[in-house]
């Protein structure tokens, strides 16, 4: 479904992504782990087209999309959430979701009718709002909801484009334990054929939802395999996990 071949990216002298090749099957849920600064977010940016790789290619559903701009890739079913909230701050939760749904439904540039009033758009908004537990706040503006809720909306907006492939950048960071659990349920309720790539620092969640795990370190894929294997991996423990509880 989503594949990268030998992706490379440097910022000046900093080599951030090194020869990354990944392959996600349809419906696969893969979690990316890695220490801070390993290049996870950068990989996402390369996948969706916000950055252009120095070399290598990105393939979506079998097609080379490396040359396509962000918007074209998105229309082909690639959607992402951001590590740092990237929302429509002055608008309400409903409008945030509606804008995303409208693009998906193809009403975003129509001149003759209101995209947000379309039944199919409203339907998506309702569903997604339920999924991310924001129904009670549907009319609140982004600036009026707490940070945690905004994190959920961040995922919601990505979901509202009804993607084929969903990339989530630390969806639960800044979200309390209760909502974290809710997020777990959310993932379980998503269609099984949705391909997902998740960056996550919450190990419990990661091992719980992942079909496969990729570990990045200094921009390089240092582990690629099943969660069980990852759990036992000494390397992972060394570079990433540790545990303050052991202290």
């Amino acid at each position, binding site marked *: 479904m989503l594949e990268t071949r030998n992706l490379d990216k440097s910022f000046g002298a900093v080599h951030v992504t090194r020869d990354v090749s990944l392959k996600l099957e349809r419906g696969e849920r893969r979690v990316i782990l890695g220490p801070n600064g390993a290049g996870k977010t950068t990989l996402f940016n390369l996948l969706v087209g916000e950055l252009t790789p120095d070399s290598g290619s990105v393939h979506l559903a079998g097609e080379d999309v490396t040359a396509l701009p962000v918007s074209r890739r998105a229309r082909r079913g690639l*959607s992402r959430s951001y590590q740092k909230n990237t929302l429509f701050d002055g608008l309400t939760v409903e409008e945030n979701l509606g*804008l995303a749904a409208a*693009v998906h439904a193809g009403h975003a540039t129509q*001149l003759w009718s209101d995209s947000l009033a379309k039944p199919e758009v409203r339907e998506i908004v309702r569903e997604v709002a339920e999924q991310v537990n924001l129904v009670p706040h549907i009319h609140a503006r982004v600036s009026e909801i707490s940070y945690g809720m905004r994190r959920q909306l961040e995922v919601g907006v990505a979901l509202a484009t009804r993607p084929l492939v969903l990339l989530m950048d630390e969806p639960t960071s800044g979200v309390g334990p209760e909502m974290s659990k809710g997020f777990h349920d959310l993932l379980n309720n998503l269609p099984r054929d949705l391909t997902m790539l998740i960056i996550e620092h919450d190990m419990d969640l990661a091992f719980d939802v992942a079909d496969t795990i990729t570990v990045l370190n200094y921009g390089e894929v240092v582990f690629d395999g099943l969660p069980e294997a990852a759990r036992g991996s000494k390397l992972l423990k060394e570079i990433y996990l540790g545990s303050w509880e052991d202290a």
Partner: protein
Amino acid sequence: MFRHSTLRYITLALLTSLALFQAFTAAYFGLEVLTEILILAMLVVALDLVAGFGGMVSLCHGALMGVGAYAYTTVSVTLGISPLVAMAGAVALTGAAAWIIGAICSRSHGIYFIMATLAFGQMAYSWVFEAPIFGGDDGLGGIPRLDLGFLGIDLNDSRSFALFCLAALGAVYGAAVLILRSGLGRSLSGVMHNEQRMRALGLTVWRVKADVFGLSGMIAGLAGALAAQHIMYISPGLLAWTVSGEALVVVILGGLGTLVGPLVGAAAFVLLKHELSAITTYWHLVVGLVLIGVVMSRANGIFGWIEARWGARLDRRLADATRKSAPEEVLNDA
């Protein structure tokens, strides 16, 4: 995102009746002033459309209006084609020019966008100023008004022309509302609030910007064609950047992003200007101070101020309403 609140409907109704009253009772100079307000109102609606709802603060809308005026004049006077066709041509041409400007400037933001549009405006100004076919600095005269004789209307009569402009403004306002409520308008609002996210959702951002800028340009072109007919004489001064600057002042004075506000602003500005210039030649000073005062009051222009007061009362009445008024942003994850 654009909404028509009760207050906005009330204001619109009030403005319309005032305009109608004025149109039927005013003496000669009153009609002149009314027409001036109506044409300026069209221009500022066009500007509010892009600036207030798309974050595209344009400093070339005066020039676009000038393009409309010159296009109308060239087609109707120089080429001798019927005014109706000339008007349609002016609107189409200005729209096309605006679309191109919008497309080219779509990558710029903030002050850079302002300056990029200014550059295009100034290019048009210099060109018109220096091209002999446009009469240079001396301008062009003898501009005919639209012939609505078949409807029994003589637009050469000031009253009829004022009413005609009022009708045109009504149509323009309606069109602006339709645009803002359309999918395109909604997407525009998304682009204004977060362009990056809109792109990530799959929207071709530059197209949306260019399309709305083009539509706004068509309105400016219409205003230009009407301005040419109103004054029956045009000169390059019409395209000067100060005209765009003044339009921007009017939009802010009235209330950016409210669509109704700019109408109020246009009336307030023109009336203020006329009243003051009758009293003192230093009226710019007063206008400047008023402008500073309005902006400093932190309200979103005159209409924004009214809306805030009205909104507060509404809030009190609907104490249990979930909607709260806009909070201040402090250290947000912006």
